[in-house]
């Protein structure tokens, strides 16, 4: 190869450069160049690095820690008690916070993953390097998930340690379930945000749509579900309405805490739900990841069981649908 090299003397004072003919150019490592994971990792690391520099990750850890700490300390204020609670009661108090905050964080992270690069015109330069849109999307999604998972996990670990040490509670299982299901919930909403990001032309449009999606998932879905049950007036509807209220209603935590007090320490089925029998016709609630998340975390208190298959199916379907739809749209978008 050395014989093919041509040395160019620069008349304008540039340093001399050894320039090889294009046919004999230094070919990059094909295994690295062609690897899906290599490209996805590079884009994900860059995405996480950018968010870390912007202070997003640190701010998120602090907010999350504060939220868990305050909820654990003041969670029993409604029934006249203050102080750090054990894991199980912290979980009940945290449910509302997680179901509102985590989807919102996921959407805020996901909504500008693609549209911001498109608006800034950096997306063109990435694709010009021969990166497929599938790799770009995967990298962006993984980067978004990491940005959400790191602060949430840190927050859960620190708060979990503090709660365990302060309340001398060793039954950490409900707390771990909350942390795991909360993370999965966040990942699903990063996916929804990513889909919104591929469909929008501007960041403002994506933000507005994300907030609408959040309202839809957090409030509207449950109201519509209840309205449908009420309108059918079926005998089973009365039981289902109570169950739906328990899995979606914001005051369910208060009911459960009150029940805890009345039963002398053991959390069981809340008094308001004593008549409620476990029912299998509520599978449609799993269509909304937030309701599924609540159901997973208060299943023992409600005396119901959430089948693992339902959880896996819901998560798989949501991930498949959001990533598939994003890829479909992105591959048809002219930049």
């Amino acid at each position, binding site marked *: 190869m050395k014989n093919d090299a041509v040395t160019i003397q620069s008349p304008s004072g540039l*340093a001399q450069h050894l320039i090889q003919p*294009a046919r004999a150019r230094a070919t990059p490592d094909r295994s690295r160049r062609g690897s899906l994971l290599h490209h996805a990792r590079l884009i994900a690391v860059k995405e996480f690095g950018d968010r870390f520099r912007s202070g997003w990750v640190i701010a998120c850890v602090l907010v999350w820690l504060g939220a868990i700490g305050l909820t654990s300390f003041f969670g029993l204020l409604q029934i006249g008690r203050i102080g750090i609670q054990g894991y199980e009661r912290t979980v009940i108090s945290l449910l509302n916070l997680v179901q509102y905050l985590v989807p919102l964080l996921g959407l805020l992270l996901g909504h500008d993953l693609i549209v911001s690069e498109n608006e*800034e015109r950096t997306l063109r330069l990435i694709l010009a390097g021969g990166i497929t849109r599938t790799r770009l999307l995967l990298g962006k999604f993984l980067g978004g998930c990491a940005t959400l998972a790191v602060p949430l996990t840190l927050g859960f670990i620190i708060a979990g340690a503090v709660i365990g040490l302060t309340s001398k509670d060793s039954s950490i299982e409900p707390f771990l379930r909350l942390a795991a299901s909360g993370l999965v919930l966040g990942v699903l909403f990063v996916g929804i945000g990513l889909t919104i990001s591929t469909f929008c032309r501007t960041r403002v449009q994506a933000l507005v749509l994300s907030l609408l999606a959040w309202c839809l998932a957090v409030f509207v879905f449950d109201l519509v579900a209840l309205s449908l049950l009420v309108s059918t007036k079926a005998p089973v509807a009365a039981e289902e309405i109570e169950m739906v209220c328990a899995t979606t209603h914001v005051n369910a935590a208060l009911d459960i805490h009150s029940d805890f007090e009345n039963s002398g320490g053991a959390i069981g089925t809340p008094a308001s739900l004593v008549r409620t029998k476990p029912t299998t016709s509520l599978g449609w609630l799993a269509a909304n990841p937030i309701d599924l998340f609540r159901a997973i975390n208060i299943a023992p208190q409600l005396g119901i069981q959430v089948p693992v298959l339902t959880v896996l199916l819901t998560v798989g379907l949501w991930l498949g649908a959001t990533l598939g739809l994003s890829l479909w749209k992105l591959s048809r978008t002219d930049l």
Partner: protein
Amino acid sequence: MSAYLQISDLTKRYGRICALDRINLSIERGSVTALLGPNGAGKSTLFGCLLGFTQPTAGMIQLQDQPLGDAERAGFGYLAERVALYPHRTALENAAFFAELKGHDTAAAEEQLKRVRLHSVRDRKVRQLSKGMLQRLGLAIALCGQPQLLLLDEPFNGLDPALLDTLQLILSEERERGATLLISTHTMSAIQPLASHVAVLLQGRLAAFGSVEELRAEHPELESLEDIYQQIARRGRVGEEVFT
């Protein structure tokens, strides 16, 4: 001998607007093709099709007799008309990121930063760079990994004479190396010393294509590339009026 880059009946429509109308181009390896045309002629759309930003409505693009795909594009270098990079990242971080995407290491990026004389500001954030520096950084990114095909969209825009000289020199070096260059520009004086071929796009149609010598032979009365382009453009406009 088959062409290095073959564009056959390439058409791109946006609804009722035809941005590219059955473009046929055969680009030889090692050639420097000046892509000329007024604003809205379809130059950027053609670049978009070549770089995968835009899906053609019809037609085919082949690189060395193979359909052009994303894997082949990893061997391309691209300089946008308006260089857009990550403003909160340094010059080196930007260059290294795009080099890594193509499978090259940071050293390759540093080498190109030296070449465009930006090595002294490699740790400066992109938002702190001047327009000329940004243009050179974009060029350094395009040159990473010694690409086989360089696509440069209006590279001479807004450059002062010294920078223009530097850019012309680097492009000459690339030509000497054997790279194929496709340069979209309005700056005829800057492209004239470099170009081996000229393609003129008018309203999405290829109005003329050939080597500089061929075009000069067709227009013996005209001296400069700019005069030849003006004549083709005038002829194209007249043809358009007759057509309409």
